[in-house]
């Protein structure tokens, strides 16, 4: 169509297709208005409705609800206005206006989404038309609250690759040269008996016995003991992660825990182990009241404790809420910068990034570190995974990034179900928080500062976030491995990576230049941190959706390849004409051809 050379993720900002591939899936599917339905997707209801677009006007059209999505298509004009919203994105549905409301279009629905937009629809007042559609959306958007299954379990999508095989823990540990004489693999948690929110395979200090681990578990919140996340092949320093120690008001000590941390330190002869407590100091102190706390100086003499001042999930939730207020539906124009500042969103990004920089710097200088927050599944996951991204170029590849998410986030029990609230109607749940979004934002900031260091592009990050909510894939469902196992997520759902890896060309950064041993230190300064407008402000129609430089580079690559081909052809015809001659004129280009086969 008209927008061919631009290829934005959402060609029409009015109607985002969060599944850009939907139309090219090979399976036969019944069309829904003008998009193909997914295998396993079923129509539930169609209805005439008015979409109250915040950017231009009220649009008359038809809404189609399936067990996966809400699809709207206008009927009132030639220019298409469409909406394609996976029901999983819906955070909340509200009725607006009552039976007594006067005026046209004052009676309808408001849908608040998790992806920075709200949708408003107006309906006719007569004949319970609103009640039906409200109830259907409510039921299918929140299936778990209605005793139904998430769409991921109903989907019949098939892909060539089994995305669940992207991450094989043993394979990943072997890549890190583990186990070795300092670190061993333990299967103590194979039935989730040591810790029900950890994965089954753990890497621990070689000298720590399984009995030690059990005793340490008793002193760590939710038994999340310090285990290895990453091993530095050259200096043998490690990143380990855990939850807070159960120090409590009385300042309890635990010899086993103290000795265990010392084993981590000893493994590569680090003189002082650095413990990064992600929280602000006061929060760590306050946690003592609920039985938690932090490692005291006298108890852990060979360790130094550093607080990283990152706030908790509630602060982040409020920050994002404020951000939404200033970008949707309209961008706050008169005091944009100070409004942005007052959301503190970028400030939080800065703290997370600078925390990760400190971790990476410590490890690359040869010292081992322990990272924790309270439970070790939110801020801890942000810090370890970002530090690993800085240290290990493997995680900056398309595959490696998938492994990183599977490992540090999914397998180590970031509570996706609670933080996102998949299929759950309780929108005000205090457990919800955009921790993972914040992490992806940090990754985006890094890709902006190092445009050649990442194999994947911005589009991958957006697709990951879209499917964080969509419930189309099993990848981000449930809080931990044990829950995933008992619900047979691997057997019954498709992994997001199967979908992503079915067409990797969409997600490749053409500027990528592999550099195996480079540590990336982004500048965590407000001077460089930017609001990720192509994500947060993507619904605004006054915004241009294109990545011209990337596009242009691809065009140039194609041109280069075409020239190379032409030259080769000319040489072939040359060599047939003058078989034996060795004139310098033809020899020179020949040499160059062989030189120019750059790996693209």
């Amino acid at each position, binding site marked *: 169509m*008209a*927008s061919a*050379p631009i290829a934005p993720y959402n060609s029409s900002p009015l109607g985002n297709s969060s599944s850009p591939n939907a139309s090219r899936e090979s399976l036969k599917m019944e069309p829904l208005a003008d998009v193909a339905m997914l295998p396993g997707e079923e129509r539930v209801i169609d209805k005439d409705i008015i979409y109250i677009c*915040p*950017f*231009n*006007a*009220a649009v008359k059209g038809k809404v189609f609800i399936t067990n996966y999505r809400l699809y709207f298509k206008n009927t009132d004009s030639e220019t298409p206005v469409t909406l394609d919203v996976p029901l999983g994105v819906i955070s909340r549905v509200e009725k607006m206006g009552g039976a007594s409301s006067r*005026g*046209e*279009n004052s009676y309808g629905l408001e849908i608040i989404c998790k992806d920075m937009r709200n949708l*408003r629809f107006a309906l006719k007042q007569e004949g319970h038309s609103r009640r039906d559609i409200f109830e259907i959306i409510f039921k299918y958007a929140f299936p778990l609250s209605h005793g139904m299954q998430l769409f991921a379990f109903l989907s019949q999508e098939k892909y060539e690759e089994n995305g669940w095989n992207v991450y094989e823990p043993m394979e990943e540990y072997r890549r890190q040269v583990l186990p070795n004489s300092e670190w061993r693999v333990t299967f103590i948690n194979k039935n989730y008996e040591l810790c029900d929110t950890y994965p089954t395979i753990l890497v621990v200090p070689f000298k720590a016995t399984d009995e030690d681990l059990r005793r340490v578990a008793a002193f760590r919140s939710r038994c999340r003991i310090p285990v290895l996340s990453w091993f530095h092949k*050259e*200096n043998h320093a490690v990143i380990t992660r855990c939850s807070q120690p159960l120090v409590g008001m009385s300042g309890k000590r635990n010899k086993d825990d103290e000795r265990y941390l010392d084993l981590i330190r000893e493994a590569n002869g680090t003189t002082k182990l650095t413990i990064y407590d992600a929280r602000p100091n006061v929060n760590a102190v306050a946690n003592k009241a609920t039985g938690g706390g932090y490692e005291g100086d006298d108890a852990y003499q060979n360790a130094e404790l550093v607080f990283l001042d990152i706030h908790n999930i509630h602060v982040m939730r409020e920050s994002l809420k404020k951000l939404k207020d200033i970008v949707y539906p309209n*961008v706050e124009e008169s*005091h*944009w*910068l*100070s409004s*942005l*500042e007052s959301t503190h969103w*970028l400030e939080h990004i800065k703290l997370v990034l600078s925390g990760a920089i400190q971790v990476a710097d410590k490890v*690359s*200088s040869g010292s081992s570190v322990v990272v924790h927050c309270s439970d070790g599944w939110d801020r801890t996951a942000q810090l370890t995974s970002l530090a690993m991204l800085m240290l290990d170029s493997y995680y900056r590849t398309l595959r490696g990034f998938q492994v990183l998410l599977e490992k540090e986030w999914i397998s180590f029990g970031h509570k996706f179900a609670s933080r996102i609230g998949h299929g759950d109607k309780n929108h005000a749940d205090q457990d919800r928080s955009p921790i993972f979004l914040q992490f992806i934002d940090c990754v985006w900031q890094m890709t902006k*500062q190092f*445009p*050649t*260091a990442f194999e994947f592009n911005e589009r991958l990050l957006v697709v990951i976030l879209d499917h964080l909510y969509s419930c189309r894939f099993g990848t981000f469902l449930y809080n931990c491995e044990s829950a995933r196992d008992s619900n047979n997520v691997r057997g019954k759902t498709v992994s997001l990576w199967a979908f992503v890896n079915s067409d990797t060309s969409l997600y490749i950064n053409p*500027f990528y*230049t*592999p*550099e195996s*041993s*480079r*540590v*990336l*230190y*982004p*500048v965590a300064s*407000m*001077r460089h941190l930017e609001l990720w407008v192509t994500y947060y402000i993507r619904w605004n129609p*006054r*915004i*241009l959706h294109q990545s*011209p*430089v990337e596009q*242009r*580079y*691809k*065009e*140039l690559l*194609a*041109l280069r390849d075409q*020239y190379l081909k032409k*030259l080769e052809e*000319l040489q072939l015809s*040359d060599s047939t004409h003058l078989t034996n001659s060795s004139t310098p*004129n033809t020899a020179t280009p020949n040499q160059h051809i062989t*030189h120019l086969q750059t*790996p693209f």
Partner: protein
Amino acid sequence: MMFSGKQTKPTFKSYLPPLQTDLKKSPQLPIKKLEAKLLPGEIIVNEANFVRKCIGSESQDDLWGKLVCTNFKVSFISHNSLPRKRFQCTHRLLGEHDIPLACVEQVVTVNDLKGKQKILGSNQKLKFNPTELILYCKDFRIIRFRFDEAGPESAKKVCLAIAHYSHPADPQLLFGFEYVGKRYHGSTGDRVNGVDPGGGMQTPLFDCSSDWDREIKRTGASEWRVCTINQGYFISPSLPEFFVVPVSLADQDLKQYACFFYSQRIPLWCWNHPSGSALVRMSNISDPQQQRKVEQRISSAITKSHPLRSDVFKSDLDKNLPNIQDIQAALLKLRQICVIDPFEESEEKWLSSLESSRWMEYVRTFLRHAVEVVYMLESRNVPVILLENEDRDLSCVISCLVQLMCDPHCRSLHGFQGLIQKEWVMAGHRFLDRCNHLKKNDKEESPLFLLFLDCVWQLWNQYPAAFEFTEVYLAVLGDSMWVPIFSTFLFNCPRQRAENSRDFASSKSIHLGQDQALRFPPVWDWSQQFSLKDQTLFNNPLYVGKIATCVQNGTVKTFTHRRSKKNYSSTLRGLPSALRNGSLGPNDTLARRNSLVLRLRSDLSQVREQQETPSERFIRDYFSHPVDLQGLLLPQLLPSHLSVWKLYFLRWVPEAQIPQGGPITAFHKLSVLTDEIEMLQSQLRQYKGAGSTPNNLHAEHSKMYFKVTSTPHQTPSPPEYLSSSFPFSPVGNLCRPGILGTPLSKFLNGAKIWLSTETLANETF
């Protein structure tokens, strides 16, 4: 070696034992050979030995050398070189540590023992012996020298000399006069003393009627003519000798009208939209009684020159844009937060401080205003008059921006340079006063040109492939304002240039020959400042015009630069609805709006529905289609989509530098690829006959700074010296008080990181 891939060749240096660091400390280095490199006409005024230039925060990194004040620059000559100086863009007129006097904003002397500090002006006395000299520069650098080991008298003298010579009392004391004047002695030939008359370039200077004629032809402005009544500057002191007026206005009429305008500035034609609508700039009419009549005459003449006889739209710039003092105040605040405030402490409030500087707001205001004008030309198809009191400041910015948005020719290098000649230099922007070269009147100082460059950068940043030049070019162009030898930035108007150079010539008995004025080189003669190799940093590898391609269904189409005339028509949209007296009718504001919405607004108060003006709809329509980079370019105007021009404003800030990162790393890859394509093209040409061009010619003629490597199967990784400040370097250029106490290792954090990983990696082998 696993890192470099290529073999490290032994160099001369590698046979020498590494320099001891304490050697650097001692001032006992041979000083006899420390001599300033002087340009023709340059003389040494004063100098001091055993001076330390501060590089980082610790004195051990400082450089020892001689501080020299000439009539052109502050020069620092040292035997030591900077640490980690693997890359340097060499300036032909300035050494590594040189600062042109014109770039010095403020001279501050300090005696830290006595706790005294004094800002020096010209002809002043200093009652204490300075231990330190701090030069605050117009380009945001802050340079510090220490005199701990220098003779107190010579230190004082050199400070006073710098202060005095950076405040010239008369334009003819600006170094350009001596420099250019010197070149008239003892040389003949076309290339007058090394100064190429036209700069050897295709850049039109618009100082002759033929340049204007060509511009009229290029834009198809057949109803406009070149007017020569101001030859010899007999009509207006601030207008150029040649300019363009409607054909319907006779010279006699113009002479009659001239007296009504400020400084007898007859309205100037800037440019014609392909649809025939002209862009005209005009100063205010001083006599209110005549105002109506004269305005009407001018307007109707412009209307007569319009193919559809459309009425003129007047855009009052003074009413809608900040004034020059506002803009100056904004820059000062921006400088404060970028380079003076301590970095860490200002982090938390960075965004709100940035907002309160208002710089970004002004950038946006100018861009938005230009878009409004574009809307009138493009969508309403009416001629536009830019109205400004003196027509010498705001109009320059707006008329240029409008042309950049509408006319792809202006986005080529020569087109852009011609645009600046036309709308700034010839139209009489007071560069001398606005740059405050004479430091006479601070109230007249205003960074309008820098603001313009920032606006261009915003467009460039949003559409990098649409411009032939790079952001390095824009930054270097801005810096060139402070090298006082270019005709471009030295004068308030062409007449001032002519008069001053005549005076100077007669006082120095220079025979100008056929020239009317001294041939100051225009800044566009880039070879004055940079080698051809360094000039390739200006070439944008993304530029569509050069090797335009379009990939469709897997096949590649290549087309050469299309004629702009043809492109013009593609930007035409619909026919105009006539305007009455230049104001919008009531129908226009509400045109085509769904009546339903109006009712909705009252009912759904929660919906933040805003009244969309026709120009907003024009913008929204524009963004709903793919952008043709050779057609109309409208900037994204939301404040969330405008950025700080980091390369310009933050290049000296060590903490803000991203080692081996920043947009330059992607640029590097692009440059290499474009270079490879150019090479393949030349090889293909060889095959197609036309004789044998030797292959090595490619390397010399390549337009790209970074070249394809001959190593097979190797994706070039970005060179280590790249950073977000490239090709500039913070080292030694920003020594604000706050940086004291920061270890150099942090200051040069890139170097440290590389050291540690390299040593680590080496251990494994």
